[in-house]
């Protein structure tokens, strides 16, 4: 039997490959393009109102003028508060699940519940936070209640990324440490965690991004419609960027006039998330280097 023309086959192969690659290439460019479009839209619309006063002053004239300082402070407080809660709880839970619990029904249940927790709509977290933290525990509409609610929301993200980070640590490190007579806790603390830490930081990045943009969970637990002063304690209400944005676009005193302020607010929110990401990325790199050195 005669073999088909080799040149022709080779050409065909090459053509198919380049078609496939072009599709992949276009799709990845598309993602960049979408992100770029959203960012440039927000920047274009919002940059006009951004100035020093905008980020350091109180809102004025029914939120159509002035700044958004209290909302920035509020969001920063909420991010910090929720991380203060979610990070230790989530990391410790993940350590327990990955390093201590044996495979079996208990581990399965905890895992399934964590996944379920991640699937709950954020507005439900808001309702739950309101009934538990605001009403039952009498925290009232407060930074504390809002932080805890947001923390709950971030918990599954932190747990899951921490677990992945721990799983990525090669077992031979654990065995080597245990083989020297180290306890499980010594092994976890001085070998496993330092190796996993850069990746655990990734979980922090992701949850900061998520938490700072959430509106629904803070709706009933902390967010103030208009509160032109800074919070003085964790039991105070606060303004927050995403909620402020929502208010300006739907129920402000003058929606059309406050439109630029809304875009400015959106821009500030994006910038804060971006800075948080960059910061966390830097931390990740720093600890990644340090791990090798320690």
């Amino acid at each position: 039997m005669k073999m088909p023309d080799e040149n022709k086959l080779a050409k065909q192969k090459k053509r198919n490959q380049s078609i496939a690659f072009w599709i992949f290439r276009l799709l990845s460019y598309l993602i960049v393009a979408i992100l770029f479009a959203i960012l440039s839209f927000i920047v274009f619309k919002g940059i006009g109102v951004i100035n020093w006063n905008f980020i350091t002053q109180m809102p004025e004239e029914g939120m159509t003028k002035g700044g958004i300082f209290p909302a920035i402070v509020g969001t920063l407080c909420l991010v910090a508060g929720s991380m203060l809660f979610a990070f230790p709880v989530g990391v410790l839970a993940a350590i327990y699940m990955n390093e201590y619990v044996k495979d079996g029904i208990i581990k399965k249940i905890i895992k399934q519940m964590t996944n379920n927790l991640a699937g709950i709509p954020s507005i439900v977290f808001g309702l739950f936070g309101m009934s538990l933290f605001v009403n039952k525990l009498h925290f009232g509409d407060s930074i504390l209640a809002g932080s805890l609610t947001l923390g709950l929301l971030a918990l599954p993200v932190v747990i899951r990324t921490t677990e992945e980070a721990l799983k990525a640590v090669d077992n031979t490190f654990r065995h080597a440490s245990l083989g020297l007579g180290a306890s499980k806790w010594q092994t976890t603390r001085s070998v496993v965690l330092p190796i996993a830490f850069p990746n655990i930081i990734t979980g922090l990045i992701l949850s900061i991004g998520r938490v700072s943009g959430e509106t629904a969970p803070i709706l009933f637990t902390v967010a103030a419609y208009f509160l032109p002063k800074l919070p003085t304690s964790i039991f105070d209400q606060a303004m927050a960027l995403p909620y402020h944005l929502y208010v300006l676009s739907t129920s402000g005193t003058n929606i059309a006039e406050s439109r630029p302020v809304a875009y400015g607010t959106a821009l500030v929110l994006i910038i804060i998330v971006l800075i948080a990401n960059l910061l966390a990325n830097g931390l990740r790199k720093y600890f990644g280097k340090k791990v090798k050195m320690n």
Partner: protein
Amino acid sequence: MYKIESKNVDFFYGASQALKNINLAIKPNTVTALIGPSGCGKSTYLRLFNRMNDLIDNTKIGGQVLIDGDDIYAKGVNVDSLRKEVGMVFQKPNPFPKTIFENVAYGLRVNGITDKKFIEERVEETIKQVVLWDEVKDKLKKSAFELSGGQQQRLCIARALAIQPSIVLMDEPTSALDPISTSKVEELIYELKAKYTIVIVTHNMQQAGRVSDTTAFFYMGELVEYDNTKTIFTNPKVERTQNYITGRFG
């Protein structure tokens, strides 16, 4: 008196039996090679001596493993102290992501030693023992990852020796190393014999022949033959052993 003894040892992963009725006794200050095809149970057997198999869920052991005459699987045995007594070196060099110094000091630290001077002396002594000192003495504060594979493996041996075990288990310690590093580690094993009892799992027949005093051949979870290395390699009693050693199967 034997250093290590196993009496009627069975071992199960879940329902599948990995070791069947193993009886074997190892004299102190000898090198024993465990050989056999992949999956024959030799690594599993090695890991019984420092109870590393405890880390795997759903396993079961039957029979007795004695070290210095004491059953290490008896109730109330402190596994951490057992592992301090029985050091282990792994297949791939696996130094911790710490400095060269801290890698060797780790075992001392986790066992509660805080005396700085003692730790420094012990680290130096051990690194000299594995003939690595001249290569690393100027970079003890550098990451262990900067060393070559062979150097890393000798560092891992030093790490195991620092806490002064009496037994050293080696699970294919040279399978990831180049020939020159391999021969360095083999020389080291030969020298360490004076102070330690060594059990080594290896896939390399020549290596078993070069470094060990006695050799145990495992097949399908059973101990087929156990004798002086010389006898095993020149005049084995069982045909299967002969076939494996000469490369006719395996």
